[in-house]
């Protein structure tokens, strides 16, 4: 036993000498910003509280929107029918680069959006998140709740140039068009090694005292088949630059692609745009679903071939509707 103790002490000393180099053991490895891009510094809550130019009533509304964003589960059964919060994917309060910061929605919309093939407002963009990622029903357009969400987004965009599209840190930083050959078993082993400790062996997430701590990555509690995160490249990019929590950039690109494919080869609630036929739905929205495994056969099973909408007692919220301006 004495020997072991000596070894431990020795290990401690050796490590201490390494520390002198001051290299972090777990560096924050995030992509560099391309030159010439607009770099935004989104305000903090402290900035809000200290800003006397903002009317107290507006502060209240912004904080309400922030509270909805951070604890979206308080709206469970009203607007949200799965276990997600906005901050589950838009980490760091929606302010953080490469974590799909939400303020660009306030400065780049209204704009044409490929996903629904029409010009979208900020409200409509937020409604999209509620309809797909939260497997829910958005707050009514023009409602107090929607206004609070909009106020939070616009305040985060404070001082950012309107309609500037050349934005640093937007989205999750696309991993590129070239992806490795995707292999379910390879993705599973990456998952078990890096993700299961928090999200569970079956992607079920973890709860404590009735609250979601680690969100489910598939199944009824997760995002539905219409969510942007079902696209393999979106999930791979998110994972690469945000996961495991606190260790951005620690997985290789290949690992991120494989684990994204593994997660998105599991079942989840139906796409709200479902026509009643999964293959038809895939074809109809192929510009989106060409990036997902929806309506394809994985491990002998046709994914998305079901009527399951999770805890949500309907398929499609009324807010999802086309616009023509005619």
């Amino acid at each position, binding site marked *: 036993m004495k020997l072991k103790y000596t070894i431990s002490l020795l290990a401690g000393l050796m490590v201490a000498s390494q520390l002198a180099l001051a290299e972090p053991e777990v560096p*924050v490895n995030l992509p560099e910003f391309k030159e010439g891009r607009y770099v935004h510094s989104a305000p903090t809550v402290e900035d809000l509280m200290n800003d006397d130019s903002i009317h107290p009533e507006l502060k209240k509304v912004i904080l309400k929107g922030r509270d909805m964003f951070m604890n979206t589960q308080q709206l469970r059964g009203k607007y949200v029918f799965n276990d997600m919060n906005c901050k589950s994917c838009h980490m760091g309060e929606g302010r953080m680069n490469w974590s799909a910061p939400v303020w660009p929605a306030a400065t780049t919309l209204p704009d044409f959006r490929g996903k629904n093939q029409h010009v979208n407002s900020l409200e409509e963009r937020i409604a999209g998140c509620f309809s797909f990622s939260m497997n829910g029903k958005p707050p009514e357009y023009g409602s107090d709740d929607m206004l609070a969400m909009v106020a939070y987004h616009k305040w985060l965009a404070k001082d950012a140039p309107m309609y500037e599209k050349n934005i640093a840190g937007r989205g999750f930083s696309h991993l590129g068009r070239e992806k490795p050959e995707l292999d379910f078993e390879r993705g599973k082993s990456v998952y078990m090694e*890096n993700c299961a*400790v928090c999200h569970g062996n079956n992607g079920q997430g973890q709860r404590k005292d009735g609250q979601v701590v680690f969100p489910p990555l598939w199944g009824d509690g997760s995002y539905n088949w219409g969510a942007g995160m079902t696209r393999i490249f979106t999930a791979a990019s998110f994972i690469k630059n945000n996961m495991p929590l606190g260790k951005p950039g620690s997985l290789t690109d290949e690992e991120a692609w494989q684990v994204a494919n593994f997660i998105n080869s599991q079942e989840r609630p139906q796409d709200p745009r479902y026509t009643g036929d999964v293959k038809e739905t895939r074809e109809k929205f192929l510009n989106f679903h060409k990036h997902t495994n929806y309506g394809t056969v994985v491990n002998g099973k046709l994914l998305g071939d079901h009527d399951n909408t999770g805890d949500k007692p309907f398929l499609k919220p009324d807010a999802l509707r086309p616009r023509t301006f005619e």
Partner: protein
Amino acid sequence: MTTLSHLILAGAVTALATVANANEGDPERGAQLAAQGDGSGAPCLACHGADGSGNNAAGFPRLAGLDATYLARQMLAYNNGERVSPVMQPNIDNFDAQQIQDLAAYYAAMPVPATTTSTSVSEEVLALGEKLANQGDWDNYIPPCSSCHGPGNRGVGETFPAIAGQHPNYIRSQLNAWKSNQRNNDPNQLMTAVAERLSEEQINAVAAYLGSQSATAE
């Protein structure tokens, strides 16, 4: 260093395998062991108290009510060198895997004592601690403690222990242990990543705040 790490790792793997083979912990046997010690050192209760509440001044953690699997893993980590403590190691190095399971079961089943520690720190320090615990410091890539340690930082499952109501001196020493590589038993280096980004001021603040919080849900 590489060989040494491999040795330590091999030890950890062996120890984990041993624990899988051990029978489920028996809290009654654990109670006896806690009073007797491992034969070559101080008995557990000498430092952790008869009620498992630990001691802030000396930096001895509360054990009562912590998750059994978590507790067993920590004892194994001392014995295989993943956790380095000249105080703790000599006192448990003769316990075998079954005895460690028994001790873990004993402490896990204990009612959580009121260990809330009021330290004489300012309101500003507590406010900084509260912010780190529940909102984090994302500009320095420090997620909030609660994102893994759960609601009220009262712990989640067998991996993320309750840190609310844990003694500030112990929390401080552990965060520093991660920074200085004296503690290496966190899965995927999830805690190392955060600990090494924390400043001394932040460590003091978050330790004081967590210590002031209740370990049990109201």
